[in-house]
């Protein structure tokens, strides 16, 4: 029983930690692009990498202040969104999907390449760039704090607090935008571009705005991740994270303001709970060692998440917050 409580506490910490914030911000961005505007961005992690490395390179290579690094990261994401959007947004939706997935992989390989080593430190990545930010914490960051049976370092707590404030502000922004006429145009574009064009709206501009806004959310997510881990390593930004963010979004419910946030928390909770729980069951001998060893757990938990998502799509395709009638309209 104590073990179970412990597993729950560890999973709960994971659902509130910087990784959950990372996925939540990525998923909020994808929600704007895919959930509301119908744009398929399969390379959200590229925006996150630009955000993370925007700070890392600015601070540790160029010696700029932390907050300038934040600006650099956001600007880089805006530029990437414009570069991706300019040629593809006039075309069918799949072109953006292909361009983004290729960019995400290409950028990561570029950042880890030998020729980029003077700037990005190649595969070893950059570190020691978050000192200015951690120093802003109103409490002592060198000691650990115990909250509900979990142990947090002062720095972790500070990143989580600022991260969740970012998530809340982001959600409020999305909420305000989506109840405005701007959001109505965006949702209409998702339904039928030509109808929106025939009513005098410049669809291209709206799609570009959605792509940029979503990309900036992705960059913010990448910054939280980089500051949370204290390092920026290109291989941390594998494109699998984009699809985990999609999973979080669908789990929570697309085109819902809180869908990506709750989805990301749940995803991290399930992943961590499955991990701790399975390891516990193996060490207690409930699961025989030759059936499943503790080294397999890291993979098995993703299988469990996959099965869970399948069940969700069968029994609750609208996600947690979605409206079933709305989702079923497409299934005619």
């Amino acid at each position, binding site marked *: 029983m104590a073990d179970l409580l412990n597993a729950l506490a560890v999973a709960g910490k994971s659902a509130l930690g910087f990784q959950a914030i990372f996925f939540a911000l990525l998923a909020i961005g994808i929600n704007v692009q895919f959930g509301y505007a119908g744009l398929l961005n399969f390379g959200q992690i590229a925006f996150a990498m630009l955000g993370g490395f925007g700070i890392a390179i600015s601070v540790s290579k160029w010696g700029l202040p932390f907050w300038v690094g934040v600006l650099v990261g956001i600007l880089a994401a805006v530029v990437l969104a414009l570069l991706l959007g300019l040629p593809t947004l006039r075309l069918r939706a799949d072109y953006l999907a292909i361009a983004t997935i290729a960019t995400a992989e290409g950028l990561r390989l570029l950042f880890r390449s030998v020729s980029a080593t003077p700037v990005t430190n190649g595969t070893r990545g950059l570190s020691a760039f978050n000192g200015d930010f951690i120093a802003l914490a109103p409490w002592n960051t060198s000691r650990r704090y115990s909250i509900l049976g979990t142990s947090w370092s002062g720095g972790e707590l500070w990143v989580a607090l600022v991260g969740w404030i970012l998530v809340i502000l982001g959600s409020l*922004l999305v909420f305000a935008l989506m109840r405005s006429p701007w959001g109505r145009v965006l949702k*209409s574009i998702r339904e039928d571009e*030509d109808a929106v*064009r025939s*009513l*005098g709206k410049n669809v291209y501009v709206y799609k570009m705005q959605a792509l940029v806004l979503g990309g900036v959310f992705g960059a913010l997510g990448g910054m939280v991740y980089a500051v949370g881990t204290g390092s920026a390593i290109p291989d941390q930004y594998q494109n699998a994270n984009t699809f985990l963010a999609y999973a979080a979004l669908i789990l929570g419910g697309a085109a819902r303001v809180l869908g990506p946030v709750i989805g990301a928390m749940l995803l991290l909770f399930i992943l961590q709970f499955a991990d701790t729980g399975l390891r516990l069951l193996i060490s207690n001998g409930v699961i025989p060692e030759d059936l499943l060893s503790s080294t397999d757990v890291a993979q098995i938990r993703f299988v469990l998440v996959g099965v869970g998502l399948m069940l969700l799509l069968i029994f609750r395709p609208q996600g947690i917050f979605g409206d079933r009638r709305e989702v079923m*309209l*497409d299934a005619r």
Partner: protein
Amino acid sequence: MPADPTPHGATASGAGTSGGSPQGYRPGQEGGWASGDTPQRLAQIALRDLPWEIGVAKPDPAVVVDGVTRTFGGLTAVSVDHLEIQRGGITGLIGPNGAGKTTLFNLLTGFDQPDTGTWSFNGKSLGKLSPHQVARMGVVRTFQLTKALSRLTVLQNMLLGAQDQKGESFFRALVPGTWRAQEKANTEKAMDLLQRFKLDTKKDDFAGTLSGGQRKLLEMARALMSDPQVVMLDEPMAGVNPALTQSLLGHVKDLREQGMTVIFVEHDMDVVRDISDWVVVMSAGKIIAEGPPESISQNQAVVDAYLGAHHDAPLSAEEEDQVLAEAEETIARQERSGGDVLSSDRPKNPKGTDR
């Protein structure tokens, strides 16, 4: 609805002989119309004395098309030398499938770009404009396959149609104070329109739950939210039940009463005859006839386009001989191999009689 019940077909064969009515079109005056007349009647009267010629100049054209061609590979989808659409009238665009009617619509509204040609609205060129720019000029269209925005409510669909919305800019959207009043006015206007189209009880339903006919109504009402000057309806009656057709017809006539110019594509000739002031017939990308609705059924080119040029032409003596020779040859061949042909038929016959 037609104020003048006299069938124009009777007089129009001698185009120009009726001499113009005192209430008719007066080019010299402002707007060209005598006060107190209903627009419907005026459009008809203005067009009455025109010759039934392809490319004939209209007294007050809203849309002028000149030398527009559009080819898809080797196929010439549209090749229109000259076409004028009378302002304030209902112009029907008919033609067999594949005649290029929808392609012409796409060209006129910026959804497609022509290979050559110019076209203008109120004297302003529409060439090289994108669809939303055309729409902002006041030329709004509907689609053959209805484009209701399924996962938006009926009211949201309507509100999307309103033009110059302040809240549709990204930054002003964040300050509700800048657009709330306008939104309220638009909502009132939308509810008025929905009431006219008998959709007001559905305002909070998803548009995707509406029936096909209701979607047609919604699409038309949505188009009207933009206060258009020209409304282009692509098969507004397709797939709509007869009761609803009557109501849709009434709405189209209403548009004319409000002074809008209506261009519509339709296959149902009864509908075309009922509401149009002028009919343009297309076939294989070309305009093959123009005239008031009464003139169209008498037009040989139109009959040929729909039924084929030789559908009732008598055979010439040589053709007759050739057909006869072919038939004789077939009979002779069957007689030679007669047993086979018949035996293959035989087993079927007893079965048939058994039942």
